[in-house]
Structures are given as C-alpha cells and as structure tokens.
C-alpha cells in the first residue's frame, strides 16, 4: 500500500473507460445504423394506440413516507460503518451506546408500522 495514489488512478481509469465505452459504441453505431425518422416512429409508445395526454403526469407517489424512513436509516448506516470497522478497538460501552441508538430508530420503525405507514394502500 505504499503507492496509494495508484489505486485511485485505477479507479479514475475505470471511470474513464466506463464513459468511453458508451461514447465510442454509440458513435460507431451512428455510422452503421440507418436514420430515417418519420412522424409515427417518433410518437410515444402506448400499446399501439394514439397516446392520451402527457407521459410525465403528476401522480400520487405512495411511498414518500418510505422515502423519509430511507433517509433516516441511511444515516444510521453512516454511523454503523465506522463503528463496525473500529469495533475491535472499542469497549462494551460503545456497543451499549450503539444499541441505544439503533433501538431508538427501531422504536421509530415500530411506530411507523403501527401507524400503518408501511402499509401500501
């Protein structure tokens, strides 16, 4: 692990290759594929019928409360990861502390459960 910057160079190379492949493949594809757009071809697909109204309609996203809980538990994982890495160097006290922290979140989950937030209605 001496030349530690090398490993991040590799990550950067992977990212560059990941960007290059779609760019190259789609450019090559442009030379090979036909391009004859007609109006029916460019209309929105709706099982063969004329599309009704807009596609980007506003509709009720039923899971926005799930999304709030996702944010809460995702933040929990942010605390769990460093705790888990350093666990062998920490004492019993930190385990109890993490237990209380996760316990509070689980009480929240239980509350949401009882409030029927987790029910898809």
């Amino acid at each position, binding site marked *: 692990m001496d*030349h530690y*910057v*090398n*490993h*991040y*160079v*590799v*990550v950067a*190379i*992977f*990212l560059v*290759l*990941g*960007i290059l*492949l*779609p*760019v190259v*493949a*789609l450019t090559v*594809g442009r030379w*090979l*594929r036909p*391009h*004859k*757009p007609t*109006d029916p*071809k*460019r209309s*929105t*697909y*709706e*099982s063969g019928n004329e*599309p009704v109204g*807009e*596609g*980007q309609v506003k509709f009720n*996203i039923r*899971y926005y409360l*799930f999304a709030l*809980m*996702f944010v809460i*538990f*995702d933040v929990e*994982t942010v605390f*769990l*990861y460093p705790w*888990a*890495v*350093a*666990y*062998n160097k920490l004492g*019993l006290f930190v*385990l109890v502390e993490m*237990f209380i922290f*996760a316990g509070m979140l*689980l009480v929240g*989950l239980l509350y949401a*459960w009882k409030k029927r937030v*987790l029910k*898809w209605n």
Partner: protein
Amino acid sequence: MGAWLDEPLSWGNALVLFLWAAVFLLIVLGFVTYAIYYERKVIGWMQLRVGPNRVGPLGLLQTVADIFKLLIKEDTIPRKADRLLFILAPALAFIPSFAVLAVIPYSEKLYFADLNVGLLYYAALSGITTLAIVLGGWASNNKYALLGGMRSAAQMISYEVPLVISIVGVILLSGSLNLKDIVTAQDGGWFWHWNLFPQIIGFVVFFIAAVSELNRTPFDLPEAESELIAGYHVEYSGFRFAFFMLAEYVYVYAIAALTTVLFLGGWHAPAPFLDFVPGIIWFLLKFAFVVFSLFWIRATFPRVRIDQLMSLGWKVLLPVAIANVFLTALWLELFVK
C-alpha cells in the same frame, strides 16, 4: 496487477494500468455475452426447452448476433422525450456498473484497486444506477416508463438499507472495509471459516436484497414485461437499450464477485488439502455458482407484487439485518474479545 500498483506513478505505468483495465473491460463484455447465452440456455432447460441453438455451433453466436442487430438498428428518440436526459440515462446506468468492479480482488496478486474504503465505494456507486433508471423513465415521457422508473426508486429505497446493513456483520468480523482484508480474514483452511456460516443471517438478507438491487426476477418490477411492457426502457431502442441491458448484466458480474468476496471466502480453498489448486480457480468456481443461482432464481420464482416487495423490505429484512448486526457484535464481545 499487484506489482504494477507498487511502483511509483508515471505516464508509462498509467498507460499499462489503462491497458490492463481495457483488457478487463473486454473480458467483462465477453462475460456478459456468454452470461446472456447461458442464462437463456439454463432457463430453457429448466422449462424443458432447448434454448438458443441455431446461430453458430450450439447457438454460441446467438448473443453476438443479437448485439450486432442492436448496433445496426435505427435509434428512435420520441418527439416528446427530454432529449438530453434520454441520451444521458443509459450511459449513466452503465458507468457505475463498470466502475464498481475496480475494487474486486480475484486472488492474492490479481486485483485492480486495493482501496481501504472498497466496500463503501461499491455501495455508494451502485446506487447511482437507480438514478439513471429513474432518469430514463422520466425522460421518455411515457406512462409505462415513468411507472417503471418510480417503481425502481421505491425498490431502491426499500432494499438499499437492508443490503448495506447486512454487510455490517462482515465488517465487524474482519474489522475492515477493504475487500482484500475481508477475504484474508476468512482464511482458516476450512470452508466453515468463510463468512457464510457465522454470517448466515446476513448472507440471506444480503442475497435477497442483492437480487432486488439487480432488478431481477422475482423483483423485476421496474421492467415487468407483463404489466409495464418493458418499464423504464420501453422507449429505448438499438444500442441505448443495449446499455441498460449491459449495465444489468455487469451488475450480475459485480454482485456475484462481491458475494464471493464477502461470504464465500474469495480465493480460499474449501479444505486445506485442496490448496494446490490456484486461488483464482476457486474464485471462478464460486463466482460461477453464484451466477448460476441468480439464473436459477429467475427461472423458479414468480414476480412479487409491489406492496409485498415493500413490506418484505421494511418489515422483515430491515429488522433481521439490524438484529444480525447486534448478534454479531454481542458474539464478538462475549466469545472473541
């Protein structure tokens, strides 16, 4: 690979690393080509069919022909679509799927990037693909695509958390986020030293959540053919569609490799007397088994409903994953320290 990484960085070295990564990209593309063929064959056999057998010997060139067809197919972008986002989405789906592969170690010597935050890097980047799916669904300006994209977001917020928490048990046991160290920590000679057995609960949660993150059956709601035609990629054709598919199969590679590293002991042999077989062979065997399991699951399970999906994630997997973390921590506290 390891030797190149230990030398000081220079333009020459960077070029060599680049070439290695390019070769690896070709290997991954080859894997995807034959994973698709193999998946169709396996599912065919499980359904008492033959599977592809016309193009080339045993149908081996079927996927090659499919890719070529996609390459020369006309690319239509709907009039009402948001052009920029529509073009961006397939590329954005693919980039993180390939970038996560940088941190996977294949054997003691064969790895690309040995990051201390390897696991975190994987978890962080793999989430971006969902964003691309939502983006593609929205940019298509199509009702099916929008529903598919929204389902994908719902699925991600329900399964990302159990997935990430189920790995915490593994981190507790090895005390590191570095994937190489995680494999090294599973070295004990016998297969029961692998994380699979001490972390069996974590493994089950991880595997279910991983299948869901891959958007594969039984959790393929974003593209549910029988309900949403093709979901988020219904408006995509030609190579843009191919990039969504490519991203899905590169993730199959990634998750199979990650499962091998985290739970199946990476390159370690199952028993001490089998040590003479090179580590990479063991890695590939375990990897192939996980890939096969994913195809097997696809052939056997029906698709779940979205409400079942959400309640499984929140009411079962999340509490079980958190319980697993504390069981592991308690076990370490009482018996190991």
